[in-house]
Each structure stands twice: as C-alpha cells, then as structure tokens.
C-alpha cells in the first residue's frame, strides 16, 4: 500500500515537472457503460515501466470513451496470466462482459514485445489477439493501438485513441501563448510555437502531419501551415484585414478560410496545389467559421445575414446559394461536422449561456450536450463518439469532452494556465 502511494506521488511530481500536462478527470456518467476487466499485463525482462504501463493506459482510454467501464484494479476477482488461467464462470457471475490479458517483454535486442488477448466472457472464447514490437519511445503509442483495436472490435467503430490533439495555451504576465500537440490522453505535450501575440484556430491536416493555424506574431494576423515533424512552416495567407478560421478539406487539397481583404469578412477557398484563391460568399454580413462536409464539396459556415449568427450550408458549385440549417435560438455558430456527415456540433447561445449542441441532419433534431455558460470550439472526435470542446471552470479556461449522446463528460485541465481551441487529428502521423 505504501509503495503505491509513493508511486502515485512520483507520477504526480513527474507530470508537474516534465511539462504542463493535461490532467483528465471523468466527471459524469460512468453508468450504462460496458463492464470490461483489463488484467494488469505481466512484465518480463524488465520491471513495469511507470510511464508506459500498457494495461493502465488501455484501461484509461476505454474509460474515457464513455462506452466502457473497466473494473478498478483493486476490485479484480483474479489476475489470470494465460488463457488457461481464466475461469470464465467467475467473471460471468460478476457481470463482466469482456476480459483482456497481455504481456510485455523486453528482449535482448532492446525491443519490447507487447501482446494482448481479448475474450468474450459469455462465450468463453478469444475474439481478438495481437502481438506488436515496440521501442521504449513507442510503448505508449502501442498501448493506444491496443485500445483502438479493442474499441473497434467491440463497438464496430474505429478507435481514435492513437492520434494527437492540438490546442492553444496561455499563461503568465505578460501573457505567453503556446501552440501545443499531445497524445489524446494529454501525455507527451510538445510545443510547436511560443509567442507574445495571440495564436488561434489550430486545425489538423487530414493525414495528421501538419497543423494550420492563425498567429499574430508579426503584429498582424496570418495563416500558417506547420509540419509537426520537421518544424518547417509556410505562411499561406497574410492579406489586409483578417486572416482567420482556416479549415482543411477532408481530401487534403483545399483550405477554407475567412478573409476581409475586400472590406468584409467572407469565406474563401485556397487550392493547396497552386495557392489559387476563390471567394465563396459575397454578403455585407459576417460570414466565417467554415467547416467541411466529408465529401469536400460543401461547407457549413456561420453567417449573421439573418441579423444574428446562424449556420448555413453552401456547395462549392458556382451557382449554389447558402441554405440555412439552424433556426432554434439566436446564436448558433462554429460548426464541426462529424466524419460521417450526419451530425454537426456547434455553439448554441441562449440567455447569456453558450453550450455545445448537436444537429442531426437527417431528422433536423437538435440536442444540447453541455451546461455552459461559456462553452466553445467544439470538435468531433474522428470516430464521432465524442465532442472535444473548450469550457470554463471557476473562471479558468479548460478543455472538456462529452460523449455525442451527452451522457458522459470529462475535463482536461492544465495544472498551470489556460487551455483552449482543441483539435483532434483524424490519425497519428
């Protein structure tokens, strides 16, 4: 017991000093999730690595999805190590649907071998089993791959754990802004850009290798594309007026953005092959916050053309006219489209409270997911099961996530400073 406390203390200290790590707490709605027993993996050739505890990472990933409730380690009925050790009847009686066992082995050549097996407790049989090779540096990534495989097998939906998130932090006086990328569980934060001037609107390229964002570092706003591996970046838009709200088309070929170079904020698209710019909207009202539909052939955007901000859909066809999508309330803005194109998450403002809502395009039904009062920047997880967003907690800016049915919530807070504008990469690159 004492050892465990020392361990926890060590983890706490490690997280604080290593970098400003996002700490994740599940705040609401564990009930209704599928019970799963993840037996602590056995380690051979080395003692368990605290910062790469594979089974603990998998357990935490699955819990965060809201679809699973892993049995707490201290409530496990048994700790089978091999398939033959599993007494399925015991787990059945305990109401556990699925069980995972696995092993990590440090081999003579310095590589790690990670293997796991997933069992259906009721049928008493293995339904999935894999073996991976990993280096010391890729062990956490391997754990997220294991989570993705288990999630996909049991839900039929692609996993989204082995990916990255990008976000903007601010702290200190005078304020220092940082653009950071981290694993989806907040670990391994890397700073792409530090600036005394605001950084805004980070969005991933579809292949997960680049981030496009707005930086005011020159004193004016400009849109940059930043390769996260090489650190190379390119300024793609620095027109007179605002350079804002970049959005990468799902086919990777086009950037949508908001420019006011002709006097008023309008939506433009830029070809990433030849940088050709085409103006899509012409209206005296504000048009901004473009978000692509999955086919890369139409956009959802925010417009104040009715007098108040509402969402509209516009096809890239030359003679297309915007079609209004939201009618409920007088502030509906900043759309994020789910990868299957069936739902749009957005900010729904009413009575001085701004909440995250989802509009289902087939039924036109709207569901409010969060409580506000200042929730913003919704971003669908690549598999559509969760919406990541920015929120406030006791006056401090934090990130939060809500399952797309609104049932389960979690918060991701920085120990020091404020964090906002999350973007979840479709894949890890």
């Amino acid at each position: 017991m004492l050892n465990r406390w020392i361990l926890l203390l060590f983890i706490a200290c490690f997280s604080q000093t290593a970098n400003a790590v996002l700490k994740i707490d599940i705040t609401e709605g564990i009930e209704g999730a599928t019970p799963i027993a993840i037996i602590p993996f056995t380690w051979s050739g080395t003692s368990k690595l605290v910062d790469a505890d594979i089974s603990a990472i998998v357990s935490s990933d699955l819990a965060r999805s809201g679809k699973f409730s892993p049995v707490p380690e201290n409530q496990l009925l048994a700790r089978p190590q091999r398939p033959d050790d599993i007494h399925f009847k015991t787990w059945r009686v305990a109401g556990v649907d699925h069980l995972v066992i696995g092993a990590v082995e440090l081999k003579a050549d310095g590589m790690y071998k990670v293997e796991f097996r997933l069992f259906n407790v009721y049928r008493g049989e293995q339904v999935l089993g894999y073996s991976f090779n990993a280096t010391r540096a890729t062990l956490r990534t391997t754990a997220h791959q294991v989570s993705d495989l288990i999630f996909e097998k049991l839900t039929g939906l692609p996993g989204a754990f082995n990916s990255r998130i990008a976000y903007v932090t601010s702290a200190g006086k005078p304020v220092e802004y940082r653009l950071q990328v981290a694993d989806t569980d907040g670990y391994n934060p890397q700073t792409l850009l530090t600036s005394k001037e605001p950084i805004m609107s980070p969005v991933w390229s579809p292949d997960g290798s680049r981030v496009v964002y707005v930086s005011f570092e020159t004193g004016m706003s400009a849109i940059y594309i930043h390769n996260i591996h090489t650190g190379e970046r390119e300024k793609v838009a620095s027109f007179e007026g605002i350079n804002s709200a970049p959005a990468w088309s799902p086919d990777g070929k086009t950037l949508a953005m908001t420019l006011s170079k002709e006097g008023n904020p309008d939506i433009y698209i830029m070809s990433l092959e030849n940088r050709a710019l085409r103006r899509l909207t012409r209206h005296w009202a504000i048009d901004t916050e473009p978000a692509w539909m999955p086919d890369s052939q139409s956009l959802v955007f925010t417009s104040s053309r009715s007098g108040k901000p509402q969402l509209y859909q516009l096809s890239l066809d030359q003679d297309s006219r915007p079609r209004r999508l939201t009618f409920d309330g007088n502030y509906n803005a900043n759309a994020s489209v789910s990868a299957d194109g069936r739902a749009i998450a957005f900010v729904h403002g009413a009575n001085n409270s701004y909440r995250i809502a989802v509009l289902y395009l087939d039924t036109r039904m709207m569901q409010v997911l969060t409580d506000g009062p200042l929730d913003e920047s919704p971003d669908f997880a690549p598999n559509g099961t969760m919406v990541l967003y920015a929120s406030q907690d006791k006056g401090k800016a934090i990130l939060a996530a809500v399952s797309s049915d609104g049932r389960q919530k979690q918060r991701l807070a920085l120990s020091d400073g404020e964090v906002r504008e999350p973007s979840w990469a479709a894949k890890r690159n």
Partner: protein
Amino acid sequence: MKTGIMKNSLLVLVMALLFSGCTPGTKPDDEMADMGADISEATSGTTIGTIGEGGMFAGTALEGMKISYEKNAINDPENVLSIKTIYFAFDSSEISEEDVEVIKHHGKYLALQPDVTMRLEGHTDERGTREYNVALADRRAQAVKKLLLFQGASASQVTIISYGEEKPAALGHDEDAWQLNRRAELVYE
C-alpha cells in the same frame, strides 16, 4: 473606465434630445443593431453643428474638453483626442452618436497631420465563438475607419488589426468586464 461609459450613455441621451430631434423609439432596436453596419447610412440624418471648431464642447459630458489638431494634441489629457477607446453593444458594430463625434475629431487630426499613422484595434467580449468575434471586431474597426476616412484621413494612415476576444481590457466573466472589452482602440504610432 466604468464611469466613462456611464457618462457616455448619459451623453447619448443628451445628444439625442438636443441635436438629432429623434423621438424615443426611432433608435434601431437590438434586433436590428448589427444590420445598420453601413455607418454612412446609420448616421445620416444626425444633426451635428453645435460643436465649434477649435472651441469647447458645451452642454455635454465632453464639456470643457479642448479641441485642437496640433501635432501633440493627442497627448493632452484635456483634448477630445485623448478619448481613444470606442465602446460597442453586444454583437454590434454600431457606433453611438457621441463616439461618432470623437472619431470625427481623430479623422480631422489625421487629415491635418498626414505623417501620423494609427493602428486601429478591434476587440469583443468573451461571449460567442472566437472566430466570429474576430470577424465582429473587424467590422467594429472597419466602421471606425470609415468615419476617419470621411474626415479626410488617408487609408494608408490607418491599419486595422482585429483581435476578437483574445486581448480583453478587463478580466472577469460578467457585464462589468464585458462592456469594457467590446471596443475599438485608436492607437497612434
């Protein structure tokens, strides 16, 4: 700062009663506020003319403020040009009548001092979405710029930068802070 806003509100009333001849209710209501974004239209019909050039304001909250367009007038705390922040209503880029007056003096100053340049910063409060707020702040700054140009300032003298909600003047999450953050700042360089 807060008392400044209250003074301004009082001034709207005074100005409305004294000069514009408007009857209560002709001011566009909130629902329409942002639709009157074309400043030339929104302010046409406003009668201005009781404020003498090079004189003093009389009968308003700006009473006692000096009017002069000397080069260093912007550094004189008693000069009308010392008012360098314009405030707005929520989700609106409409400029109040007394702020139109203030901006006109800045426009004349720029016209008479062609080597002076200004950075015009647009800001919003934290409510609503960040990128919409960048666009809204841009419209606020554009509205101010239009008035400056009407007075003879040259477009090359005025550079707009729109921060949206990124640089609040006041921290806090209530109307006390928000009203100070919905602003355009005229920064002489």
